[in-house]
């Protein structure tokens, strides 16, 4: 046997299979504790699922909110407009102003009831262009139509002829079918500071047990808030890592099947002169008493959930590019472990024990991230970010301290960002 010592072999063969059944009260206590633990595990699973669901909900609701803000709600606008206009963008700080060129409609003609309106129409026909200053002013008194007060201003070329009194005409909000420029969409001031994005980040890890499989793939969605030059970023990422796990098998070798003598019966022959034996055998698998060892490896894939909280400072900004520093903690939760290779088989040999030499991975660990961010402005709403990082792991990724030095990694994040 393995010990090569009769005394130790005797110990193993005698006491190795020793069993002691727990007393009834101890059994009850243990089972109660296990039932409690089962309930705790179930609660933990629910919490984890809730966390994931809330993260997904956050991303979905952010996307939905952004999408709804893209198309203004116009259900309450009616189709018969008194004045339609073709807006001309005019840059203004703070308040939004639109200059409109009015064109009369059939409805307007049919409603020429008052002398003032008749006078207006006469002027409109005579004068080729009148600028209207449109100011947003929600009128809550009209539940069906949202109307805008329009102040008519005299055209600059007519300033010398006669003084045109300023009049107020109520205009409906633009029709949803009217062409609007994306830059004129209604954006709440607070949301202008937010942006959402998706990223892919390859990562190269160092100081791990498996030095051949360093590459880790990270991808996910993120939401960031910025007030130049500072920014805060968070989100949800999925991280896929692979690694090799060594398993040490202790086994007894299968020597084959032997015929085991169960019993022998004797009977007189027909002549009654000889005793004829009948042998009864059964088959029995025989294993070697010597213990053998073998070490095999299997590849495993680890699925992590990452939740970062990254603070940023942009020290250089131009119209096309901005550069800055990023730093912050990252929480990483092990969601799933799956085995990529088939289970190693020892054939018909008898497995005595399996020792996993490579420790299991931790279910939760923390990292610190430091990076240099470069943002390229692709358009008014889309940015491309390239961000090389250095990540330091506060604790080992393994349950036991498998390596003396803590892991660290290099990664390059590339993200497509949409301003909300």
């Amino acid at each position: 046997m393995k010990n090569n010592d009769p005394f130790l072999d005797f110990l193993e063969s005698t006491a190795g299979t020793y069993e002691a059944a727990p007393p009834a009260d101890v059994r009850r206590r243990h089972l109660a504790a296990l039932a409690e633990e089962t309930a705790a595990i179930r609660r933990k699973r629910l919490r984890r699922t809730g966390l994931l669901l809330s993260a997904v909900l956050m991303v979905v609701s952010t996307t939905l909110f952004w999408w709804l803000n893209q198309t203004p709600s116009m259900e309450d606008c009616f189709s018969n407009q008194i004045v339609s206009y073709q807006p001309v963008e005019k840059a203004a700080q703070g308040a939004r102003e639109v200059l409109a060129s009015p064109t009369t409609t059939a409805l307007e003609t049919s409603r020429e009831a008052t002398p003032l309106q008749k006078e207006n129409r006469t002027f409109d026909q005579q004068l080729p262009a009148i600028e209207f200053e449109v100011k947003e002013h929600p009128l809550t008194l009209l539940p069906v139509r949202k109307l805008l007060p329009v102040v008519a201003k005299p055209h600059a070329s007519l300033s010398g002829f006669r003084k045109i009194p300023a009049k107020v005409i109520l205009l409906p909000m633009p029709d949803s079918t009217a062409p609007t420029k994306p830059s004129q969409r209604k954006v709440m001031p607070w949301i202008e500071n937010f942006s959402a994005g998706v990223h892919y980040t390859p990562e190269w890890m160092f100081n791990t047990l498996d030095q051949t499989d360093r590459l880790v793939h990270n991808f996910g969605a993120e939401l960031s808030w910025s007030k130049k030059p500072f920014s805060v970023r968070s989100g949800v990422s999925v991280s896929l890592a692979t690694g090799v796990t060594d398993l040490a098998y202790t086994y007894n070798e299968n020597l084959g099947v032997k015929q085991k003598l169960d019993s022998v019966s004797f009977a007189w022959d027909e002549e009654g002169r000889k005793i004829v034996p009948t042998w009864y055998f059964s088959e029995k698998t025989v294993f070697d008493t010597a213990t053998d060892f073998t070490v095999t490896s299997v590849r495993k894939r680890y699925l992590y959930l990452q939740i970062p909280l990254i603070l940023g400072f942009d020290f250089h900004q131009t119209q096309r590019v901005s550069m800055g520093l990023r730093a912050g903690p990252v929480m990483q939760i092990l969601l799933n472990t799956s085995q990529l290779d088939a289970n190693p088989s020892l054939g018909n040999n008898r497995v005595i024990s399996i020792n996993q030499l490579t420790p299991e991975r931790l279910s939760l660990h923390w990292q610190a991230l430091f990076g240099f961010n470069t943002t390229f402005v692709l358009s008014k709403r889309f940015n491309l970010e390239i961000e090389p990082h250095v990540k330091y792991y506060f604790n080992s990724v393994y349950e036991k301290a498998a390596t003396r030095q803590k892991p660290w990694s290099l990664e390059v994040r590339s993200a497509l960002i949409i301003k909300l």
Partner: protein
Amino acid sequence: MTNEQEILKRCIKGDNRALTALYDRYAPKLLGVCLRYVPAKSDAEDILQDAFIKILRNLERFEYRGEGSVEGWMRRIVVNSSLNFLRDREKNMVLVENMMPADVEAGDEDDVSPRVSPEEIIRLIQQLPAGYRTVLNLFVFEHYSHKEISVLLNCSESNSKSQLLRARMLLKKNMMQFIANKEFVPVYEKQ
């Protein structure tokens, strides 16, 4: 799918009946392991409970590799729990070269095996000093090499070897004395 696998799957889903079946199947064997490492039965029971909770928490991550793999895995958890307990509780479990009492000598090489029962052997192992007992258990019953023991117990490889040698000598001497006197206290009083 074997019955064993079925039990494991149901345990993962939170089936308490499957958990009871798992406990009843393996608790006697695992308590036997605990008692080899820790003499006090109340401590052994606590270790068994802790180990079962660890087993339950890690069931999802266990990969079934045929018959015997479940027991091997659970046994490893129990051994690690016992070692952790000894580290925490028995701070004096120092593995030093000169820990051996001077008067211990190797017993006779007579064959003592037929005259001692498994329960009596466990009792004699429990009477060994904690350091000796741990090295003996890891080497003889868990099949750890001296190199692995040295890593586990944070000592040198030669230290582990000498501990084993002295444990063997002391155990054999105690066994001879026991056979001569035949005074036996049960390891574990079954109820």
